[in-house]
């Protein structure tokens, strides 16, 4: 007998599904990717059961495919998340996120005395996983910060 698999969040025809987000990180991703306050149709699920994570969050964004910079940001908040590109209700592409080694021009340096704030350059961080955190080091002022501080969370 084939067990009928029931989707936990309604399927979308075209768009992006970010799955396997650690529970609690979903809201941060929505905020950071500035998905809230747009007219995009977004379906979210928080604290859904997950074999791998125990509990997970999921985000489905209709009619929108993520670009590389957004994927990099996502990797920062949910390195184990998967991004599924959906077309005509089926998965056309699937890739796993990983913590990016570098991040350019996405976040401002939290150091208020860093030269990047008043000069014509883009911010640039190198990233390092350290225990349960990701440390981000500014290329210019060489100060290291927790990713949550850099992302202003």
């Amino acid at each position, binding site marked *: 007998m084939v067990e009928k698999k029931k989707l936990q969040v309604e399927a979308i025809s075209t768009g992006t599904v970010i799955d396997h987000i650690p529970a609690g990180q979903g809201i941060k991703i929505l905020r950071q990717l500035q998905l809230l306050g747009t007219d995009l149709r977004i379906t979210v699920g928080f604290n859904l059961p997950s074999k791998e994570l125990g509990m997970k969050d999921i985000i489905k964004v209709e009619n929108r495919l993520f670009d590389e910079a957004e994927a990099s940001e996502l990797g920062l908040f949910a390195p184990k998340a998967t991004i599924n590109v959906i077309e005509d209700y089926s998965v056309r592409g699937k890739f796993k996120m990983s913590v990016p080694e570098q991040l350019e021009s996405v976040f401002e340096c939290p150091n208020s*005395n860093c*030269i990047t704030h008043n000069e014509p350059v883009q911010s640039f961080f190198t990233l390092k996983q350290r225990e349960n955190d990701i440390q981000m080091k500014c290329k*210019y002022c060489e100060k290291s910060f927790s990713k949550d501080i850099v992302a202003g969370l």
Partner: protein
Amino acid sequence: MTNPLYKKHIVSITDLTREELELIVSTAEKLKKSPRSDLLQGKVIASCFFEASTRTRLSFETAVQRLGGTFIGFADGGNTSLAKKGETLADSVQVIASYTDAFVMRHPQEGAARLAAEFSTVPVINGGDGSNQHPTQTLLDLFSIYESQGTLDGLKVAFCGDLKYGRTVHSLAQALCQFGAEFTFLAPDALTMPDFLLHDFEEAGIKFRHADSFEEIVHEADILYMTRVQKERFDETEYKHIASRFILTSEHLLEAKPNLRILHPLPRVDEITVDVDRTPYAYYFQQAENGVYAREALLALVLNESI
């Protein structure tokens, strides 16, 4: 063979390899023994101090002149187009670099030297960027350590004072990680070595420990690197209570190893009493003098394919 520092920007001590650090130290030693007045012949060096400095600026300018070069520049950024007309540092650097063969700078903001290196067509030498890096201080510290100990390898180095904000302490400790040093830290609770550096030391396989008094340090240390505990970081009663524990006197040195040398980036206020100056362990004035030779070595290597 071209020396590896030729035309290289010197922004952060962590950019330099062990071999490059050793080359600078050995070149400083040679230039101290046998002065050369030809190595910067015909070269013009920019000496741009957007923030005031005494020892760094004067020793750089002395180094340039001793090597036969000339310098242009300013000792205070207040009268420049940046301050008066709102020009960006990036634009100022491009213009000044086009007049000169190398660009020595100090700036009150962290990251200024890295930014300058991106816009300069000539080598940038960082003379201090805010609380971040001061690589030439570290080079003269390394030269002084080498000169007084005969080696840079496997030394026991104690750091005392403000280990949280002291950029000289951070840079020197980072550099010594390449030479298998062993560290001891003596600092007020509020001014201990930052965690991110302790992680770096662990990753580099460096042994370190925290001490509570000079007595725990002097009998085994080869180098005692003193820094000032700044009054403004504490309220007055707290400061009085704390500071007395971090003032080094000659009495603390009774059990010192004979080869112990005390270094200090200067200026000293009261953290080393003057009676220490008369002991054989005091080395901070020789260290300050070595600033000229270390900077001579760096300028010579950056501007000459081979020496």
